[in-house]
């Protein structure tokens, strides 16, 4: 069964290469390679380019990973249904859960390899100017990879019962509401906006959603703050739990679907 999942993931990966998805990653990698030198030219010798470059570069990687997760997660299954390439696959002795797993592994490989390439580009370009290779950039990028993997699993689940545009909207909604930090809810919705009803609604919705804000550890690298290893371990366990839950729910809906 693992071999079947492997072949399905490989098939998906080859399909994405044929669609030239990797070229977008390479284009962004070139931007990230030039970014610190560009920022340094404006820093007027204040040597703050490193902080700004890391902040800007990691934010760019985060948004790219999230966009990729939503796009790939939403289209992974639905494009096979629309192009009718799903039927010859399911006619073979491949259970539907293995098909979903193969797709998810393929999406994860595309996403994580993109995030890795981009973070390596950022690390190298910052190191070229500061003469210090900050390995924590990779740690933060992997946290972003974990965050987008959870989002991709959710989008695959949504795409099993909703059309691609609606699944995309649901994915964006999940990302925004699940990513609201407690301080954001308390400050903007209660203190600044004076809307406790909106705050209560946001808290209720957030309670049943993955807390994406836990994966955002960018400031630890940008401002050289301590990042406890036990915290990293806990968010890995947390992220895996949500991925398994979304895939189980996706399998439940997909196995009952009349194709």
């Amino acid at each position, binding site marked *: 069964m693992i071999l079947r999942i492997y072949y399905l993931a490989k098939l998906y990966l080859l399909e994405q290469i044929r669609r030239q998805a990797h070229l977008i990653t390479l284009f962004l990698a070139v931007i990230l390679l030039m970014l610190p030198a560009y920022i340094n030219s404006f820093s007027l010798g204040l040597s703050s380019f490193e*902080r700004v470059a890391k902040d800007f570069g990691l934010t760019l990687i985060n948004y790219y990973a999230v966009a990729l997760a939503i796009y790939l997660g939403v289209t992974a299954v639905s494009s096979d249904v629309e192009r009718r390439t799903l039927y010859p696959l399911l006619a073979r002795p491949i259970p539907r859960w293995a098909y979903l797993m193969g797709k998810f592994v393929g999406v994860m490989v595309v996403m994580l390899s993109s995030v890795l390439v981009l973070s390596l580009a950022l690390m190298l370009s910052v190191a070229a100017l500061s003469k210090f290779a900050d390995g924590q950039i990779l740690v933060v990028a992997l946290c972003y990879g974990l965050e987008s993997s959870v989002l991709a699993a959710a989008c695959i689940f949504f795409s099993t019962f*909703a*059309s691609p545009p*609606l699944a995309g*909207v*649901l994915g964006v*909604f999940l990302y*925004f*509401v699940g990513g609201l*930090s*407690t*301080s*954001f809810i308390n*400050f*903007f*919705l209660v203190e*600044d*906006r*004076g*809307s406790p009803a*909106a705050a209560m*609604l*946001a808290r209720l*919705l957030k309670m049943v959603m993955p*807390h994406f*804000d*836990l994966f955002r*550890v960018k*400031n*630890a690298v*940008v*401002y*050289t*703050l*301590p*990042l*406890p290893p*036990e*915290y990293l*371990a*806990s*968010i890995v*366990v*947390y992220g*895996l*739990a*949500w991925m*398994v*839950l979304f895939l*189980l*729910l996706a*399998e*439940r809906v997909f196995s009952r679907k009349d194709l």
Partner: protein
Amino acid sequence: MRRLALLLWLVLLLPVGAQSPSDSPSPSASPDEDHVWTVHGAEHESHADVEAGGEYTNEGLDAKSDNYPAIYKFMIRETNSEPYLRKGESRLVLRDAAVVWALNIAVIALFYRRRR
């Protein structure tokens, strides 16, 4: 499905409509806005900066932040309350993870009963 999508957008837009943005002071209204961005690095600022004025000390920042626009006040609070900086946060995350894993086991048990 269309109603669901509409409802989701309404929920997203609810906080925006709660108060007009024009009620908040504009960012350009603050004469000290460029100082806010150094909050995180306040402890790491050069010695000369600390001596030059009290605005770079934590006390000075707290006193001055009363006049900052809402977005800057939020940013100060947000950057000082990162989840990984809070004590015992790992245990809270693990507790949440345990709840989700328990949910996973419940779903698997439900599947097993259904398929048997």
